[in-house]
């Protein structure tokens, strides 16, 4: 299951938002990379964020904690974190603690983009 590939983030822009595509595993050794990228995104006054999980192979509570650390500030600025294309094993971890109540999780990048267009969050 877990590959030994570590963790990287590809960044793409859309409208006034940003897609962060996560690759590899998100644990206590790599979660700081995600934390820094989200901080950088917020510093650029971007609050519409899509987390593309297509190539995210693993997440632990250290990764979940980074999203929780920033979600309040993101929503206070009228934005949101929308997750897309999660592998089943990653979704299972979100689901185990009830995170689907808090976050919008959709099956594709297109669906995530349409949520921002329809929802009108800035």
């Amino acid at each position, binding site marked *: 299951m877990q590959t030994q590939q570590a963790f990287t983030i590809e960044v793409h822009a859309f409208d006034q938002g940003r897609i962060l595509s996560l690759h590899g595993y998100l644990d*206590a050794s790599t979660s700081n990379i995600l934390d820094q990228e989200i901080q950088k995104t917020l510093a650029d006054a971007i609050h519409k964020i899509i987390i593309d999980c297509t190539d995210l192979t693993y997440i632990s509570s250290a990764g979940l904690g980074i999203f929780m650390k920033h979600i309040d500030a993101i929503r206070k600025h009228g934005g949101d974190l929308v997750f897309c294309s999660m592998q089943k094993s990653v979704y299972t971890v979100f689901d185990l603690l009830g995170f689907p109540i808090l976050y919008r999780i959709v099956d594709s990048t297109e669906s995530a983009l349409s949520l921002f267009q329809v929802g009108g969050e800035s």
Partner: protein
Amino acid sequence: MTMLEPGIYSASASVHELAGIRAFVFERLTTQGLDSNIAQSLCLAVDEACSNIILHGQERNASRLIIDVEYSNGLCRIRIKDNAKTFDPNSVKSPDMMSYFKNFSYGGLGIELMRRIVDGMIYEQADAKNQWNTLLLHKYIHSPRN
């Protein structure tokens, strides 16, 4: 890391060892016939236990982790030994997740994840005869929680 003998893995108490620890636990469980989805969830429980020891080890002075894994007769037993100061994860109360979400709390979910994955956590603290704290995680594979 060091493989002391088949089924026993020794690593320094560093977050950079977590991927190797997960790979070891997954390989041991699946080669003994455990379903890969259940093995993955147990890897997460072990990751959380080890992360907890490592990240709180700065004040608890952990330097080494030793992990052994057994799966037979429908029972998984994973033993994690550490030489940090004593800390029993059973002493941590479960969070109210609705309040957690409402207040946008973060952190402190590792032990709760462990609790939701395994059927039991038994902690034995180091003493004069034994320098290692031991956390035993067990999971019954034929239990209704699978």
